[in-house]
């Protein structure tokens, strides 16, 4: 269970124009029609006893504690299920009601163990509270009768236990799993007295469909579903509201603490991105923050062959500054650079790019967002004028047609997926465009209207074919286009998509999607009401990633699906602060707020504020840094919170570049793969250890609050500041709020953002300025930011990465729910029980042809490298396509991915690699070598006593 909600109104709010006035215990109260008596009562300040009702779930009416009397009505209806009606007079406390409530409670307790004092929910249990409220003094039934005291505890889930002896069968958990999470893992087994909560068909939680989101644990009013961390440690004493450090959904959490120890993370009810929901990562997988692998002392070494030497912060910072200055003197000012992190806060990211531009004196700053969503920024800015998604997450609840392209929300963005699924259950139609049969294609109570199972690398052909149908069948939103888009561009675009090579009948041959399916999907999108596109890295990580983003923007404009709730073009961002790191000026060519570095006015603003001259030329992008390192002109790099060796494509190339550098500085929580090549290691601080903000995929800036002190003594922003000062460029922020104030001063879209404002309203969606003082949930209402929407001709150019006789299969990559990107965090939690290794999904035909059986070790080879992993034979992938995740360093999926990348932004083409697969019984050479390297480069010298 989670903490009893202090002001739980019992049933969800109802929206209605019509207001209804009622009298409850003599208090007049007016509420929207459809509101339950229970909720109306709470609004009037009257609490009615309850157990099965809670504000996050639809009413159920099972516990029968909330009975009331209504003048002129027979009986004692339940206040949670009875809506108010005009003129009702309700009594919540009468002799009769007291008797009934006590009677119900007497029944409950006749089947409940009496071990409150040693119970893990002691002090935070709704059953206990209610027994107190109704004044239960005696259980006349005795305890000899039938009971569930012997029921077995289920401890199979690594994070929570299910103790059915304490269950009151209120079904809150079952309903939460259905309504909130949408997984339908739980049911009530048997009936009558035997009724019990059953994962699947009386399976263990771990073996059931359960995805460990914690929604059921969250709503359980007793100790039945309880976090193991609370069982082990006891109830928290204080809590801090903060933001999840994992994915781009940006869920709001309460870190519950005892002193400096986190005992539980619970999704925050008032969090606007998650509304009290969570996934297994944010909710449970926070143990990495205190994992024994955390490095908490700065370390340096002269060469990577040497063991690490622990040093003081002063020495580490001084050494780094000296090295960078030495390199710059020897090789030139441009020989050093840095990488900001999408994992760190806006403030930290801003500071790193400031350090590079102001203290290093060049623009060699890039961010790991380069490898995921750079095409989003480019494409959406070109079309609409803003490098960000158009909607807030809640917008999906107004969508009638939902298109998911190259994203797997149930794995990658689970909390958003739950809302999406809820909307589909309410009747919205779903179109999935993905090479794989992802779960959304078909799962309990969800069935996609169309699954466009295209071949990897053919996105643009598909989007053009969809557009072709819209134009050819005249499904265009003429008024919208005429009023809001550039007419000439539109005409050119229409002529382009009308060309025969863009007709579904032709494109079917390229994509493998039947023409009729394309036509039907296009018609549905164009005519099905509010249509919203959600996309992920399956769009961006292609050689035509930016083209595809613009293709989707074209389609949305042509059908008028922009500028209101329920529509839009929405990236699902991978990491917690991808949006923020892009916003903060992390790209070599852009200052914060996406102002080009060559823009005199913008540069002048920063130069004045920073009191330094800035280079007008964009600096190196990450791949250029690698190339420059290999040709000897780039020698020092400061990498904050990113594992480029594991996450960037073509590992061989990256490793060679790293080896060619003289000073590699890694700032991270762990000795990651990149640290193997580092000369300086600066211990990082986890999201629990610092103040700051993250910006999620809906442009929502949410506060990150320091819950515990930094393990290494300094927060990341303090380290960057120290480095800058050592380099002779002074930075003197006393608190990250001052960094935000500077960001706000220098960035028009952030003008209204401050910590004070965030404390006041919880979170803010940029743009937030004088024109939009409370932020902007939906963009481009009435008018595009760039003025008129721009149609861009999006010609399909097949990637150079082609299958052939040597590499006949296409590899595409993705993520899984329980692991997070390179896995540095999640691998150091119990989440490993779900996904302890990366598997290669391969279709039974392809497996059969190669003599591969499920579970066999296989070699995965491309023209650039080879690795091995185990095969999973499944029809989830289509013949000719194989798929794997990239969470485990030993798999090294990027050993095989190539150097191809998006033409506009260099975002790597992770999603398409021509490969061959064959059975093997040993590791690849790279795996052998990297294992040795990992061992040898992680040694830390034992300090002399």
């Amino acid at each position, binding site marked *: 269970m989670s903490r009893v909600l202090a002001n739980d109104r019992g049933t969800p709010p109802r929206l209605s124009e019509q207001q209804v006035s009622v009298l409850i215990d003599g208090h007049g109260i007016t509420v929207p029609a459809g509101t339950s008596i229970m909720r109306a009562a709470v609004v009037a300040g009257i609490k009615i006893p309850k157990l099965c009702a809670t504000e996050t779930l639809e009413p159920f*009416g099972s516990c029968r504690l909330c009975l009331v009397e209504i003048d002129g009505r027979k009986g*004692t209806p339940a206040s949670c299920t009875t809506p108010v009606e005009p003129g009702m007079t309700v009594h919540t406390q009468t002799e009769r009601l007291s008797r009934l409530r006590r*009677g119900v409670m007497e029944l409950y307790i006749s089947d409940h163990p009496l071990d409150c004092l040693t119970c893990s929910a002691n002090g935070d249990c709704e059953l206990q509270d209610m027994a107190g409220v109704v004044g239960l003094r005696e259980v006349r039934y005795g305890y000899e009768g039938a009971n569930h005291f012997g029921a077995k505890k289920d401890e199979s889930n690594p994070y929570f236990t299910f103790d059915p002896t304490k269950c009151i069968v209120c079904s809150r958990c079952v309903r939460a799993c259905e309504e909130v999470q949408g997984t339908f893992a739980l049911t009530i087994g048997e009936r009558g007295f035997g009724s019990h909560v059953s994962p699947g068909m009386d399976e263990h939680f771990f073996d059931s469909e359960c995805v460990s989101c914690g929604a059921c644990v969250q709503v359980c009013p007793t100790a039945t579903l309880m976090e193991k961390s609370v069982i082990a440690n006891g109830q928290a004493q204080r809590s801090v509201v903060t933001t999840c450090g994992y994915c781009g959904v940006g869920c709001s959490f309460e870190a519950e603490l005892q002193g400096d120890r986190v005992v539980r993370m619970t999704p925050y009810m008032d969090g606007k991105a998650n509304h009290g929901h969570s996934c297994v990562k944010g909710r449970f997988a926070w143990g990495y923050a205190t994992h024994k692998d955390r490095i908490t002392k700065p370390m340096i070494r002269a060469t990577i062959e040497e063991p690490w030497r622990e040093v003081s912060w002063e020495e580490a910072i001084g050494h780094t500054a000296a090295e960078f200055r030495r390199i710059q003197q020897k090789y030139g000012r441009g020989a050093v650079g840095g990488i900001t992190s999408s994992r760190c806060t806006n403030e930290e990211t801003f500071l790193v790019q400031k350090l590079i531009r102001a203290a290093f004196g060049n623009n060699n700053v890039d961010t790991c967002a380069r490898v995921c969503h750079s095409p989003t920024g480019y494409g959406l800015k070109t079309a609409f004028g803003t490098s960000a998604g158009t909607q807030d997450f809640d917008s999906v609840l107004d969508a009638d047609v939902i298109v998911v392209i190259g994203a797997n929300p149930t794995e990658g963005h689970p909390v958003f997926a739950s809302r999406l699924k809820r909307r589909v259950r309410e009747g919205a139609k779903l179109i999935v465009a993905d090479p794989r049969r992802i779960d959304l294609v078909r799962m309990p109570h969800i069935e996609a209207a169309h699954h466009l199972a295209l071949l990897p690398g053919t996105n643009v052909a598909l989007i053009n074919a969809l557009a072709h149908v819209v134009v050819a069948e005249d499904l265009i939103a003429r008024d919208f286009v005429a009023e809001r888009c550039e007419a000439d561009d539109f005409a050119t675009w229409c002529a382009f998509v009308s060309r025969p090579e863009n007709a579904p009948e032709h494109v079917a041959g390229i994509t493998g999607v039947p023409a009729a399916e394309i036509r039907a999907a296009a018609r549905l999108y164009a005519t099905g009401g509010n249509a919203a596109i959600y996309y992920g890295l399956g769009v961006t990580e292609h050689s035509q990633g930016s083209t595809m983003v613009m293709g989707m923007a074209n389609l949305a404009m042509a059908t008028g699906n922009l500028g209101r709730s329920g529509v839009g073009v929405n990236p699902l961002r991978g990491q917690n602060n991808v949006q923020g790191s892009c916003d903060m000026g992390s790209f070599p060519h852009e200052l914060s707020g996406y102002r080009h570095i060559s823009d005199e006015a913008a540069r002048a603003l920063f130069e004045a504020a920073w009191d330094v001259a800035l280079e007008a030329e964009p600096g190196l992008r990450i791949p250029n840094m690698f190339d420059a390192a290999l040709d000897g002109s780039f020698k020092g790099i400061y990498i904050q919170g990113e594992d480029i060796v594991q996450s960037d494509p073509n590992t061989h190339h990256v490793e060679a570049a790293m080896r060619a550098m003289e000073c590699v500085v890694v700032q991270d929580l762990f000795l990651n793969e990149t640290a193997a090549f580092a000369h300086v290691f600066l211990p990082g601080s986890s999201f629990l250890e610092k103040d700051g903000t993250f910006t999620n995929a809906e442009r929502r800036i949410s506060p990150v609050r320091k819950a515990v002190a930094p393990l290494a003594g300094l927060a990341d922003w303090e380290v960057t500041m120290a480095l800058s000062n050592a380099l002779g460029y002074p930075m003197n922020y006393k608190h990250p709020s001052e960094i935000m104030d500077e960001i706000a001063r220098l960035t028009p879209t952030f003008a209204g953002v401050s910590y004070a404002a965030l404390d006041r309203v919880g979170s803010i969606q940029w743009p937030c300025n004088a024109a939009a003082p409370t932020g902007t949930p939906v963009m481009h209402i009435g008018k595009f930011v760039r003025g008129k929407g721009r149609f861009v001709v999006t010609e399909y150019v097949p990637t150079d990465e082609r299958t052939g006789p040597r590499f006949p299969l296409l590899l595409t990559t993705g993520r899984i729910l329980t692991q997070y990107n390179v896995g540095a965090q999640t691998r150091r939690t119990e989440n490993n029980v779900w996904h302890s290794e990366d598997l290669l999904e391969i279709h039974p035909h392809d497996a059969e042809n190669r003599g591969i059986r499920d579970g066999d070790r296989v070699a995965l080879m491309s023209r650039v490298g080879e690795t091995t992993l185990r095969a999973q034979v499944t029809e989830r992938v289509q013949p000719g396509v194989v798929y794997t995740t990239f969470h485990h360093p030993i798999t090294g999926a990027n050993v095989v991915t190539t150097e191809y990348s998006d033409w506009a932004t260099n975002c790597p083409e992770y999603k398409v690699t021509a490969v061959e697969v064959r059975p093997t019984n040993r590791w690849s050479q790279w795996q052998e070598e990297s294992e040795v390297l990992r061992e040898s480069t992680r040694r830390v010298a034992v300090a002399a006593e």
Partner: protein
Amino acid sequence: MTRVFVPCDSAALSVGAYDVAVAVAAEATARGLDVTMVRNGSRGLFWLEPLVEVETPRGRVGYGPVHAADVPSLFAADFLSGAAHPLRQGVVEAIPYLANQQRLTFARCGIIDAYSFDDYLAHGGLRGLRRALELEPAVIVGAVIDSGLRGRGGAGFPTGIKWRTALQAESAQKYIVCNADEGDSGTYADRMIMEGDPFILIEGMVIAGLAVGATKGFVYIRSEYPHAFRRMRRAIGVARARGLLGADVLGSGRTFELEARLGAGAYICGEETSLLESLEGRRGQIRYKPPLPAISGLFARPTVINNVISLASVPIILDRGAAFYREFGSGRSRGTMPIQLAGNVKRGGIIERAFGLTLGEIVEEFGGGTQSGRPVRCVQVGGPLGAYWPRHLFDVPFDYEAFAERGGMIGHAGVVVFDDTVNLARQARFAFAFCALESCGKCTPCRIGAQRGVEAIDRVIRGDRPAAQIALVRDLCEVMRDGSLCALGGLTPLPVLSAIEHFPEDFEPLRRPVAAQ
């Protein structure tokens, strides 16, 4: 050609009607006689089943109970001309049990060939629907309201009012659901209609569809009724072939589709909301009300859900007029009720009569006392959730209000007779045990309370602090009655409290006949 009627009703089949039919056919062939055998439903005179009838100029003459072994002797006695035989019951219509009834809903049951649409038409079938097709929906609904028809499934809610709610609910799709889950102990009227006169139910449902604007119906049939299910399915097929169902009902251009569904085998699935859950493919669990099913029912669409008998009573109301129907009955209980007499009784069967006859008349005059020959001690009316009635209340008229006033209910009009060997503490225990067994488990009073009730009565029976336990049971009954989400838990106190009230001696520790057993 002589027409011989051998019933095909499950009750008749269970006592050998099939063998009788085979024997009659064989014997007729052997004797070279021109006999047409009709498989009719049952007349509902169960002590006479299998009741073989022969069409004669004087009317249909009945013989029963006939066993296959009796068949040669019947032929030998020339029963085909209605001649004398020890099993001869005379002209069936004149048997007092039947002659004293007022058969409106069961007018055809047992008379016609249940599968023959033509037979149905020949006996006045479809007249109600034809009339309805000429009327505006509101007028049909008005007729049903005026008739005073109340739900025959148990709750006795005015059928026309329910229809009006559904008619006024706005929705592109509405449904008619027939509740044929007939779970009450000692009841079988629904089954008899489905097996003996299925078209009347179909006709009633089509009329309901016209009345509220529903185009699709379901008959949810108890899983223990496989025979009725098959017959209903077949009748639906015939009705579709003959244009009663489908896209163009009787050429009117109106649509009504019907489907038979087999129940989930739980008593609670007879409760309307849990029936809807079950129809939607979920586990049969109670939904809270409001919203009423008439506003948000099956798949959240407006849904009329009615008992078989309620729906089967509609055609005659439309045919003969509301006034005709409401002539019958007493007080606010209008029309006729098919009372189902069962248990320890000499002449069990269906008694369709206007409301108002007394319990005594039912048990003594129709029933003829107990089968065992021992004195009647009590009856339970209204199924397992109905009250127990002692003899001194046998003057109570069979009428919704009169029953309710005395702490009982009519329910689906099942009357179960007990002789003086019954122990009412045992019966009270059974009431809790039944509730515990059938509880859907959703609400606390019923889920835990029923179990605790069993345990408390057990203590009473054991003589363990009986007074305190009875006080506890009374408190429990209040919690269950007022606190339960549905009538299963809510009505269980009826049998329990009536037993305690009318038969306190059975709960006294000194008189413990059960212990001796």
